[in-house]
Every structure is written in C-alpha cells, then in structure tokens.
C-alpha cells in the first residue's frame, strides 16, 4: 500500500451561522487519501468546498464530523499542532497578506524562527529555500517591490524552509497574471519532482489541473470525481454541469468526433491534440 501523507475520513464541516440562518454545510462527508510525493489538483467552483477542504489539511479548521490525519497525526490533537503545520505548509490566495517581514530573507526565516531552529541552520535553510524557488537574487529586497508571482514564490520558500512533506496551495494562482501563474506552477512542479514534496493544488483553472497526477473534483461539499487528468478532464458535460470549464482542446476534439473524425478526446496538451488531428486526417486520406 502506498504511503499516505493526508488521510480524511468522512470529513464534515459547516461554518457557524449568521443570526437567524441555518449553518451552511461546506463539507458533507469527504473521504480522501493523499499519497506521499503525489501532485493532486482539487478542482471546483467557488463555494464547492474546495478551500474548506484545504484548510483541514493543516488544522486551520478542525473537523466537526469525521477525522483528518496528517502523517498519522490526528489534527484534533492540540499537542501535535506545531508538528502538523510544519509538515503541511499552506500558500494562500492573496500574496500580500501572507508576507510578514519587510525583507525577503527575514520573511523566509519566519517559520524556522518559530520552530526554534538554531541561527546558523536558519541561514542555511533560508538560502537553500530561496534557491529552490529561484529567488536567490532577491534576498535583501523589500517584498512590496516584487511581482505577484515572485511574492508567491517567497511564500513557498517560507514553507520550504520549514522542511515540510507537503505544500497546499489554496487558490494561490487566482490573483496572478499568466506569467505569475506560470512561475508558481513551474516552481511547485519542480519541488514535487526534485524534492518529492507532495503538492495539493486548489484551483478552478482546468489547465492547471492538467499538470497534476490526480484530479479531485469538488461540488456541493462532496468529492464527486477522482482520477487522473486524462480520465477527468474529457468529461465535458459533467464538468460543465457543475460550473467548470473544459480545456478548448477537449471541446475541439469532441466537436471533431461529432463531425466524423476518429480522434480520442483525452488529448490534453496542444501537441497531443494536434497530433491526434493530424493522425485522423491522414488516416482518412
């Protein structure tokens, strides 16, 4: 059996109600295991429960029903809180609201400082973490002079410096421009590949989900689909029905099939899609 880093069992959660309203159930029984070293994308529209799910992965929220284990540790056990948060780091949506310090290196050092890491080792960790996200030339910069993508990479470095097993990106690309998104995605892909860090990417962008090993689709507080991108993304009708988009390549291939082309619908990348079309065209000719 594969090694599990995060395990959720029948997880339920609802936010406290405003006066006179019934509490809004955000999660209605989610069971999910995330393998160590994998890259999992959690897809869903706003209000699908995907962010609430993410916040259970490092005990920012605690389950009202069911259980969550991080590396075998129950998130409800307060004595384990620091260790859980060290192992699962979280990058948030707004790059400005997670940077604590006025100088890049001091911000990256914030986590290790809290953990009581000796000074000399903090220095080593900070330098290594900045290198891992490709920001080593910005050590003494002020964060407010950086672009959105750079700020998010600093936030990632701040987590790397705590030597985590898993990084959860809670819609961390939603506020970035295309180049910022690319920067962040390339960084987490590399960390996943080279350092074996587990990545959980919460997003509503289909093209981002295509990068993962596994896609979990959330809707109405439940995990409604779970599989590889190649299995999930071509399910055009179902995805549309819950307010998500499909990549244009998939839409095109569906259309071409209707027109009598013999093409697969799971060609996700531009190259694959073009290849499939060329093959279909030459087969006819």
């Amino acid at each position, binding site marked *: 059996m594969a090694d599990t880093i995060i395990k959720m069992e029948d997880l339920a959660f609802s936010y406290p109600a405003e006066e006179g309203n019934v509490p809004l159930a955000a999660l209605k029984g989610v069971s999910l295991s995330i393998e160590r070293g994998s890259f999992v994308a959690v897809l869903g529209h706003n209000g699908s429960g995907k962010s609430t799910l993410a916040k259970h992965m490092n005990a920012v929220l605690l389950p009202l029903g069911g259980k969550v284990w991080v590396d075998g540790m129950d998130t409800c056990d307060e004595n384990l809180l*620091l260790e859980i*948060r060290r192992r699962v780091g979280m990058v*948030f949506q707004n790059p400005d609201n*997670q940077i604590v*310090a*006025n100088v890049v290196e001091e911000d990256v050092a914030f986590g290790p400082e809290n953990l009581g890491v000796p000074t000399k080792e903090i220095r080593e960790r900070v330098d290594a973490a900045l290198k891992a996200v490709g920001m080593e030339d910005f050590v003494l910069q*002020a964060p407010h002079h950086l672009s959105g993508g750079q700020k998010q990479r600093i936030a990632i470095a701040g987590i790397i410096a705590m030597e985590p097993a898993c990084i959860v990106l809670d819609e961390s690309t939603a506020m970035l421009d295309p180049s910022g998104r690319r920067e962040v995605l390339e960084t987490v892909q590399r960390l996943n590949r080279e350092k074996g860090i587990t990545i959980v990417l919460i997003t509503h962008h289909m093209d981002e989900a295509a990068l993962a090993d596994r896609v979990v689709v959330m809707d109405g507080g439940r995990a409604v689909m779970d599989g590889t991108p190649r299995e999930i993304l071509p399910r055009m009708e179902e995805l549309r029905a819950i307010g998500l988009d499909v990549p244009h390549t998939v839409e095109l291939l569906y259309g071409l099939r209707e027109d009598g082309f013999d093409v697969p619908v799971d060609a996700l990348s531009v190259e694959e899609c073009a290849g499939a079309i060329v093959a279909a065209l030459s087969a006819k000719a």
Partner: protein
Amino acid sequence: MLKDITLGQFFPGTSLAHRLDPRTKILLTVIYIVALFCAESFVSYGLMVALLITGVKVSGVAPKALVKGLKPVIFIICFTAVLNLFYTPGEILVQFWVLKITKEGIFTAFFMALRISMLIMGTFLLTYTTSPIALTDGLESLLGPLKKIKVPVHELSMMMSIALRFIPTLIEETDKIMSAQRARGADFESGNLLDRAKALVPILVPLFISAFRRADELAVAMECRCYHGGQGRTKLHVLHYQAKDYLVMAAYAAILAAVLILARFGL
C-alpha cells in the same frame, strides 16, 4: 500622490550606517535627540548639523529623500516658528499692532524650525538605514529587561514590525481606492471642512474593511507558519555589538559631551 510619503520606509543598502547594530543606532538617535535639545548656540548647532551631514554621507541616503520626509510636518514647523517669532520677549526690531518681532524671537524661531527638522531627519535616517525588523529586534532587545515586570515586549515589537510591513501596502491601496472613487466623480479637493471630511468616507470604509481582512488572513498565515508567540523563538539575525559599534558610540558620546559643555558655557 500618497506614494510621496516616505514615512517609515527602509532603503536597503550596505553602508556603515546600514551595518551598525540596530541597538547602536537606536541609542545614537536617542543621544542625538537629547543633544539637539541641549544645543543652544550657533556653535553647538553647527556641530549637530555637521553630525547629521556626516550621518547622511555615511549612509548613502539621498538628501532629497530626507528633505521630502519633512513634507507632512511642514505645517507644524512653520506654526512653531511663527509662534516663537512673535511671542519671544526681548529687543524689539519691528512692531505693528500687537505683534512684535524681537531679535531673540528671530533666533528662537530659526532654532526651533531647525531643531524640529533635524529631529525628524535624524529619526528618518534611522528608519531609512535600518530594516523595520532590525529596528524592532533592537527595540525588543533594548527593552528586554522590561519583560521581568510583565511588559509584553515581544508582542509589542511583533505588532510594530507588522504595522511597518503593511504601511507601503496600505498606502498603495489608499491610492487605488481614491482613484476608483474619483472615477465615480468623488471630489476630495473642494468644499468646506465638513464636505472634505465627508468625502473621506468612501476611502476610509473600504480601507478599514480591507485592513481587517488583511489582518485576519495574516493571522492565519502566521499560525500556519507555526507562530506561537515569542516563546522558544530563535532568530536569523542575532544582535552582536562589534568594534565599529563601540567606536561610533564613543564618537557620539564625545559630541554629546561637547554640546553639553558648550551649553554650560552658554554657547
């Protein structure tokens, strides 16, 4: 326009002024302020001006940036100067109606304006050359003994450094909100005092809401990075006094002594 405010900003650098221990710089600033208030004559002011100029030169901070820092307080400086100009008794030079300008008045007004400007420039020199975190580290360390009497020194310094971190962010945000409301025809420049105060509502409400939201999100982000108060915390930069710190402090002490002695002789 708000971007012009440089209050509390830090210009990273590697000059001697940047490399001094923050505690040294805080102590020096305190000494400098004490000396300023003791200075009473051209000679001692000359010394202080020379000191400030040396400080600026050593730090590599653009003098323009320092002068710009005076902008927000220019009114206070003028007001104090004018008050001193008319209300200092002494040898009358000009008189019209109840207002009289005395020779002493001119001197006092001049010195007062100079004193306030130099006070501000001196403290700006501190904030320009010291990263806010180093500054709060320095304060935390200097105030450390107060922990014994249950003063939450760590919490206070953390609050201060976060406040400083968010000043540029909030200034930028204010700029954005002002532009957006202007695009809807808001007018911040005309009307009487009451109208102008009312015109601020569309800026202040969104700004406060956003500040609270930021505070909320930051608190969660800090907890996720294992922040749990000052207990058991280590530091990336541990403060160590070095030879240059002692040297600079000695030099300063000498200047303060000189000013005090000069004052003693009425100079």
